[in-house]
């Protein structure tokens, strides 16, 4: 035997990991279309929280105006702006939408790996494909679920809260970058939590702290989006900063996923 099995495996694997990943993705999508577990979990969770948000923010809707008689004698400009600008503006609405989507994603996306562990199919998966293919397949599946839910939820949310669209291209860039970061974080955290055979509480406890910075970057990008005539440089910097979060998380996840996957 001139070549060891691992060498032959490696030679056969390099061109085939994309087909392996797409096979896993097709399997996941077929299973999802049969049971609709992830979409219904994330979707119902989102709509229920949407209802809660709509009720909770009902009183915030009225636009505050300043009565000149009630102003104190000495008014600084920032104090005046603070009184005139309603706190419940579009960037805050965007922030709340993503808080909602983060919780929804964490309610539903753990399913992708936990299900494989619970049914024991994880061993078959480990035998039949490389770690890179598994990671890619699961990441793309989670990204599709996140995008689907975001596309379904956002218009309803905009109708209820009156969140503005801003520039359509920038809006779509922000939403896509957000979905990328969320799906990237949820995928690697789901893999960790499934290996730890953790409960949903563990999944949230190790996942949500990673997302706090993501949310700061997102609100920052939303601020740029809703600034009238924002310079291109600021838009690129802020939306690009949000996009880079997802890219970095996915890059580091891809590097470290084999260590999670091995037994």
């Amino acid at each position, binding site marked *: 035997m001139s070549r060891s099995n691992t060498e032959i495996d490696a030679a056969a694997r390099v061109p085939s990991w994309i087909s392996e990943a797409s096979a896993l993705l097709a399997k996941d999508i077929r299973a999802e279309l049969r049971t609709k577990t992830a979409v219904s979990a994330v979707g119902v969770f989102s709509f229920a929280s949407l209802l809660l948000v709509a009720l909770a923010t009902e009183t915030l809707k009225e636009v505050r105006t300043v009565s000149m008689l009630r102003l104190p004698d000495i008014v600084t400009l920032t104090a005046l702006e603070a009184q005139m600008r309603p706190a419940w503006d579009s960037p805050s609405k965007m922030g709340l939408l993503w808080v909602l989507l983060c919780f929804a994603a964490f309610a539903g996306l753990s399913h992708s790996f936990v299900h494989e562990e619970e049914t024991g199919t994880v061993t078959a998966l480990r035998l039949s494909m490389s770690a890179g293919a598994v990671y890619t397949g699961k990441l793309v599946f989670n990204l599709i679920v996140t995008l689907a839910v975001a596309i379904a939820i956002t218009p309803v949310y905009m109708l209820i809260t009156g969140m503005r669209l801003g520039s359509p291209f920038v809006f779509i860039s922000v939403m896509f970058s957000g979905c990328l970061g969320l799906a990237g974080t949820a995928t690697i955290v789901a893999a960790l939590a499934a290996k730890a055979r953790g409960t949903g509480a563990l999944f949230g406890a*190790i996942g949500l702290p990673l997302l706090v910075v993501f949310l*700061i970057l997102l609100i920052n990008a939303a601020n740029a989006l809703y600034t009238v005539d924002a310079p291109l440089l600021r838009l690129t910097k802020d939306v690009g900063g949000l996009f880079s*979060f997802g890219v970095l998380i996915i890059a*580091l996840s891809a590097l470290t996923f084999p*260590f999670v996957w091995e037994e």
Partner: protein
Amino acid sequence: MATQPKSSYANSNRSGSQRFSVPAASALQGAGWKWGMGLLMTYVIYGAFFVAEGAVGFGQGGDKARIVFFHVPCAVLSSVCYFVGMVYAVMFLVRKRDFASDAKAAASMELGFLFCILATVTGSIFAGVQWGSFWNWDPRETSIIIMLLLYASYLVLRGALSMQPEKRARLSAVYAIIALVPAQYLIWAVPRLLEGNHPTQVLTKASNTSLSYKLVLYPSFLAFTMLFVWLLQLRVRQMQVFADRRARLESENI
């Protein structure tokens, strides 16, 4: 028992604990380290009140600013500990089953959590007396509370896996590397995105501090770093004792 080979954890039982050995004591380890740190820290505590002159521009003759000697080193260490822990986490993954690295990573993260709490508490006291409010959502206050959360979630993950040491080491190392993404945004991006009232250049510009101030501040950085190294050694040794004892108990039970 004492001469058990290092490769023994590869074939130890499934839930078995992982024994490891740290290298033999060097000149810098042990009592010398402890006494050196102790003397320097004593000087820093004395110097903070009797050597350094009061800082200009702070109330009560600058007495309020004396907390800087303890707050700033803690705040710096709270992020240094993270990087030390992460380097050991990477070392664990690169050298397979090097459980001494895992223990060092875990100990470093625990100490980072401790220094993070100390920096938060001292910072909050300083903010309370200086800015009039104990919490202001200043960028650095935001950063440190997120850092605290990241450390806590690392420790939660380790706690959830406490019965499976091999898996615990592997998964927590991965988590430490993933959490580098938010951590580096906290250091580079968040302070530039949010408006704040923390001074950014007061201590980094040499001309801003008087000689008496430097005579305390610089030793303070050294003393706190030595404190970190000493505590790290202690904690790693303690983990080693625990792992040994557990391995012994398990081998007796079988």
